[in-house]
């Protein structure tokens, strides 16, 4: 191996590590590699060998963990820090990666993509850059009219040539190619390989050709370097390596590419450690407990983060009140109040004293679950909420449960019989997600089902006027009715709930339904479903599998919908005369009861955060991949 001390690209014992701690992975391990001008080196290895990472490190797209890379004697890190030197470097060293659907900006034409390096790195103006682009495209055999197309309008082979053009347009002295022919059809590979090889020979550019396909690499490169698990185990001329390699791994690799024409290949020695075992579950109670705790660490930490998140909302509510323009005290007292009255109102709003004092008092009271006193009713907010909030939450929960039931049934119909009338109707309904006015539906529902059809009782509260309310145990009206065992009360309450729940279903199911239908449609077409069916799994198992995969996104959406339902419950209460937060809130808004609004914001935020936690836990149960610390791909 010719070692030209200063010229070219040299790595000195470089290491690249991804991740940290227990989950770190060393991609490149102590690699010392050089690429001298004019050389054509092929870097071969199988997946996971670190060759792509090496390529990215050579062109400066990733930073090293250890070691250094020098270019013509200068440290690469230094070069990249200075803009002028970095641009010079990019002009001299270019990378072409494998063609994927995202190799080019889908919003720009191909010509633009190829022209930009010429303008930015070579300093050409647009006309000169365009001329250069045409030159390169002609050399690569690309028809000129294709340049005015968008990336998705040309084939993979053409796109790969554009990617090459993009790199070659600045005439780099060093070219790194990473799997540039792997995705191409065989009929096109040859053309690209020929172009690449001869372009490098003609311009004298150095080439580092990274690939897992040995034959293609052997053709393009005059030297080969074999990479395994981050290390280069062998390097030499192509002829030498192909004929006389001494490394077992290399020989194994060569065997794999030599197919005997008929019948089976001769038995191959499997390489060492071919199959990796999954993570060993710890033994012994103590170790198991510690392991379990470590795995559950995340949601415990998440639970511990809850107070912090609440603090954010509390501070937000605090800040909002102080952002009100003008003097809220004056607004409330009417500007004619005596100093005593003014001070009293100011104190109950918490607006007396300096800002830090106000904050301190506010937070101090929050810790004691003291939300202050309502201006309108004079009672503590905590007692007001404790009295009214459970009813609202119960209503919202009932609405959610009913919506989810309807959603599941409707989704099954819509997805399994896609061309039926029912499915079209259901999907149209789902398409209206989010834009269904529950209050209007409620009013019309009252008109239709009560005023016209007389199917439901009058919207005058939870119970018929003649029936005694059941004793308060939990604060949840329906639960209390059930607990009391009072038949008449239960029936009456159920009757009064029919229309409200129906309104909630109609108004809010669409959102979850849309999500679920979309998820199911997607999962049904996936290879996992086809494979299940293909291997003869019973239909029930297949459906269960499809639903389970589609569920997490839907559960998340349901959590958001609960928020809508709480808002919806407030509206329902005002429409149907139910006791709960609704009436209290509208009064508070009208009467500018700021303390109440502030307290309510904090309370609702707490409820929502708890709901979110519940949603996350559910999803982790459904889909084990979402559990943190789960090792993926035990390779």
């Amino acid at each position, binding site marked *: 191996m010719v070692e030209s001390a200063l010229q070219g690209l040299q790595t000195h014992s470089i290491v690249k590590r991804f991740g940290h701690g227990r989950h770190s992975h060393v991609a490149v391990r102590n690699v010392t590699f050089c690429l001298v001008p004019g050389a054509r080196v092929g870097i071969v290895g199988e997946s996971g060998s670190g060759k792509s990472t090496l390529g990215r490190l050579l062109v400066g797209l990733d930073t090293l963990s250890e070691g250094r890379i020098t270019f013509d004697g200068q440290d690469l890190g230094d070069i990249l820090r200075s803009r002028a030197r970095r641009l010079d470097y990019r002009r001299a060293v270019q990378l072409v990666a494998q063609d994927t659907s995202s190799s080019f900006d889908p919003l720009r034409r191909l010509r633009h993509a190829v022209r930009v390096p010429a303008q930015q790195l070579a300093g050409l103006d647009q006309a000169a850059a365009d001329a250069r682009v045409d030159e390169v495209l002609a050399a690569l055999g690309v028809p000129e009219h294709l340049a005015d197309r968008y990336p998705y309008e040309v084939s993979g082979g053409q796109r790969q040539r554009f990617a090459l053009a993009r790199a070659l347009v600045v005439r780099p002295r060093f070219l790194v190619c990473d799997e540039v022919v792997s995705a191409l059809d*065989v009929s096109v590979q040859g053309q690209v390989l020929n172009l690449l090889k001869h372009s490098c020979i003609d311009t004298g550019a150095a080439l580092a050709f990274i690939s897992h396909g040995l*034959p293609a690499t052997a053709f393009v490169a005059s030297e080969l370097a074999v990479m395994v698990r981050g290390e280069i185990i062998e390097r030499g001329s*192509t002829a030498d390596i192909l004929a006389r390699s001494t490394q077992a791994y290399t020989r194994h690799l060569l065997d794999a590419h030599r197919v005997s024409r008929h019948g089976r290949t001769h038995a191959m020695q499997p390489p060492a450690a071919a*199959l990796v075992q999954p993570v060993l579950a710890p033994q012994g109670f103590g170790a198991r407990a510690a392991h379990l705790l470590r795995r559950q660490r995340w949601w415990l930490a998440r639970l511990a983060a809850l107070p912090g998140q609440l603090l954010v909302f509390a501070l937000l509510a605090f800040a909002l009140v102080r952002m009100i323009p003008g003097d809220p005290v004056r607004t409330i007292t009417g500007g004619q109040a005596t100093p005593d009255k003014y001070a009293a109102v100011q104190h109950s709003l918490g607006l007396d004293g300096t800002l830090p004092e106000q904050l301190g008092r506010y937070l101090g009271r929050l810790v004691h679950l003291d939300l202050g006193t309502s201006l309108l009713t004079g009672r503590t907010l905590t007692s007001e909420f404790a009295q009214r909030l459970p009813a609202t939450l119960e209503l919202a929960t009932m609405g959610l449960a009913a919506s989810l039931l309807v959603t599941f049934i409707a989704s099954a119909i819509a997805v399994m*019989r896609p061309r039926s009338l029912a499915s079209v109707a259901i999907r149209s309904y789902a398409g209206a997600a989010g834009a269904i006015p529950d209050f209007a539906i409620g009013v019309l529902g009252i008109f239709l089902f009560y005023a016209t059809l007389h199917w439901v009782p009058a919207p005058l509260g939870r119970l018929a006027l003649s029936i005694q309310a059941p004793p308060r145990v939990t604060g949840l009206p329906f639960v209390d009715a059930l607990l009391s065992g009072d038949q008449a009360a239960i029936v009456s309450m159920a009757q009064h709930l029919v229309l409200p729940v129906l309104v909630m279903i109609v108004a809010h199911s669409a959102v979850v339904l849309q999500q679920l239908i979309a998820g199911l449609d997607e999962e049904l077409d996936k290879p996992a479903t086809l494979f299940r069916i*293909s291997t003869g799994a019973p239909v029930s198992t297949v459906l269960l599998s499809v639903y389970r*995969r589609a569920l997490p996104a839907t559960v998340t959406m349901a959590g958001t919908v609960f928020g809508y339902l709480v808002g919806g419950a407030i509206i329902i209460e005002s429409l149907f005369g139910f006791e709960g937060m609704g009436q209290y809130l509208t009064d508070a808004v009208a009467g500018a009861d700021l303390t109440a609004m502030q307290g309510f914001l904090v309370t609702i935020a707490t409820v929502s955060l708890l709901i979110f936690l519940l949603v996350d836990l559910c999803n982790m149960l459904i889909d084990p991949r979402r559990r943190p610390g789960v090792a993926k791909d035990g390779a």
Partner: protein
Amino acid sequence: MSDVISRGQIQPIPAIQGLLLQPAQTTPILLADGLTVSYGPPENSVAAVRDVSFTIGAGDRVAIVGESGSGKTTLALALAGFLRGTSAHVTARTLSFDGIDLRAAVGSRLPRKIPGVTMVFQDAMTSLDPLWTVGSQLGVVVRKNETLRRRDVPLRVRHWLGRVGLMDFDRIVRARPYELSGGMRQRVMLAIAIASRPRLLIADEPTSALDASVAREVMDLMTELTEEAQAALLMVSHDLHMCQGYADRILVMLQGRVVEQVAAAQIETAARHDYTRGLLRCVPTLDCFDVPLLPTLCSVAAPG
């Protein structure tokens, strides 16, 4: 026109240039005659598969080779019956497996399996169900395809895992696909496929996502398993050389048509179509590393 005589049945095959088919020694289980798959409205339809005819006998090993856009995957899906009920139009003079007419429409959205046909896909990671353990996925298949008592199922699961070379039963049975390495996942997929007792195994690009060495192992295993189960194997791939090594008969597809049907052993001498000969020549091999230029293939139009 060449006729193939098999057990007294004459199976006419429409004229295809370069046809040289070894006489089928086995009972035909899959018959396709004039199979066409198209998408889109009648006035503007795009045909992915055009007028394809061939048969597969019991225990045959057939490969369909083609590049991207040749229609080979669509053909495989049609043969597995997975295009029924989708927006694809599948028409054929004959398309039957084991006597079952595959052209019959299916009402439900869920694809219906053809008894006896199992299809495996390119990537084991996406083929296996990510949320269930290997044991449960294999167990479901075992229970459906073999009449067993419930407590015998775990034993059979172990049997199949051992058959594909996975010895660490306890851990693998409790593992989910993402917890295993790529090679193990591939083997699990094969175990499940063979446990479904197929008479025809269709493998769509079985080695495209794999490194060369792992690809060899997987193909060796696949051919072993199908031979043992006396199942026919249909592999769809773009790798001509790999198919040469593992198939008995090769069908070459170009732009939706089968342009060549030839025995794998004789493909180098007997291939008539320009495209096939071009493909053979322009795949780079280790022997051609020092040639100045690789042979290339100009785009070839399919006949008529």
